[in-house]
């Protein structure tokens, strides 16, 4: 071998090869499209958040989707390019084999490192989120609402407000609330959709979840665990009202009960 041969044999580094460049362009294009989709669509479909919890949920959804965009784009760009650049045309069998690439230590190691880093990111984000949301749920001056699931109706009682009972959930805005949830019969799941909280209602147990409703309005409470015949109809409304309106409602309920 002369002195020049190793140089000419190496003249194309891996990033200079035509197929790599084309795949990178395809990857970039798909990443941009997916990232735009990720920034707009999931949060819009999930609707307007009614609590900081739901805001965190929607932003997590968006961030995870944006982070997933280059990963999905990588898979798709290689797949798409392979169908144009490496395809054996026609339905005839190919007339030769491909190169005997048994593996590549560098590629495998890079892949492992990147996937571990992404996993770490997702994990740490999730743990951080859990930490901040659990702080909300156990705020010391939280109002307690007892939630009872029964086939197929939700009922609520307010032990700190004269044991008022209702089939609809009334909450004062900007006040932390903790739900003590149980069931009279089978497993139900207490889900306040727009506030992003959910906890199962189990017979013989009391489970807890908490939230700070920060938006006035009427929201929906559904059951998220199949509980028999009318599971689909086990739905009621959550009304977030001002503190004065809430006090007025409590008074009205108390006078009706007596």
């Amino acid at each position, binding site marked *: 071998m002369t002195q020049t041969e190793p140089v000419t044999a190496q003249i194309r580094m891996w990033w200079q090869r035509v197929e790599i460049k084309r795949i990178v362009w395809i990857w970039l294009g798909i990443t941009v499209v997916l990232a735009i989709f990720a920034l707009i669509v999931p949060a819009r479909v999930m609707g307007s958040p009614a609590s900081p919890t739901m805001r965190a949920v929607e932003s997590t959804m968006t961030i995870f989707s944006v982070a997933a965009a280059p990963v999905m784009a990588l898979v798709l760009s290689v797949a798409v390019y392979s169908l144009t650049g490496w395809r054996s045309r026609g339905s005839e069998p190919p007339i030769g084999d491909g190169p005997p690439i048994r593996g590549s230590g560098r590629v495998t190691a890079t892949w492992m490192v990147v996937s571990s880093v992404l996993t770490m990111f997702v994990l740490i984000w999730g743990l951080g989120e859990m930490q901040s949301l659990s702080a909300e749920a156990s705020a010391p001056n939280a109002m307690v609402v007892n939630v009872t699931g029964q086939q197929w109706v939700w009922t609520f009682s307010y032990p700190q407000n004269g044991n008022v009972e209702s089939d609809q959930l009334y909450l004062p805005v900007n006040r932390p609330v903790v739900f003590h949830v149980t069931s009279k019969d089978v497993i139900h799941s207490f889900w306040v959709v727009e506030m992003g909280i959910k906890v199962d209602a189990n017979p013989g147990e009391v489970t807890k979840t908490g939230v700070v409703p920060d938006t006035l309005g009427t929201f929906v409470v559904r059951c998220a665990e199949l509980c028999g015949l009318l599971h689909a*109809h086990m*739905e*009621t409304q959550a009304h977030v009202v001002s503190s004065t309106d809430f006090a007025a409602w409590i008074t009205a309920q108390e006078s009706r009960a007596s």
Partner: protein
Amino acid sequence: MGTVRVYLKASGAVAAGVLVVVLAGTTLARAGTTPGLLNATVKGTAQTPVGVLPHAFLELATYPDSLAGEHGPDGGSKPDWVSYGPTTNLSAPAHSLVTITIKQYDSGGTITNPYFASVHGTVDGTMTINGQTATASKVDAIGHTFTIHAMPTNQDPLFVSVPLRALPDNAKPAPGSSYPVPNVVTFSFVTGGPGEYVWNCEYPCGDGTYANFGGPMSARGYMSGTFTVA
């Protein structure tokens, strides 16, 4: 074989498959016996807190078995299940005052959720039981409840729940009938716009099943039905 014939044969096979699925679907859809619809009868108008509205009436009964009502005199496949009669598919007009009278022929016991021992959703929060006005029944003597509810997001919210007092366990049959003299409960509520609601009993009376909510409690045509506001 010509290309056209090939495609015809394939399409024929696919069409046959679709036909099988359609047959399965229509058989299933028809198989469940749909109880007849009971429309509320409208008689005149009435004064309500929201103005003068048409006044509609429905008459129902709760039985300790299925021998009266929609399952025929032999009680259908489950003659010993408690049931509502004459049918469980109910309908009432929109924007009306609906008055329902229920004759309660069954015994009962202690209700599991005291919320349903009180009256909710009626015009003035009361019911009439055997002629006397009340806002609740005693929690240890409930026979059934009549509870209307539904997805509030598809129609005007409507939540009405009335406890139906139980007869004593040792009540004797009235002369000329196989059932004792019933407790008669009457209540009225105002309907909103058109919508599809469901109703069911919230006193667990499905004896022998877990939480007493199986059996008739979980079956349309017995302790659960539909309430259409049209």
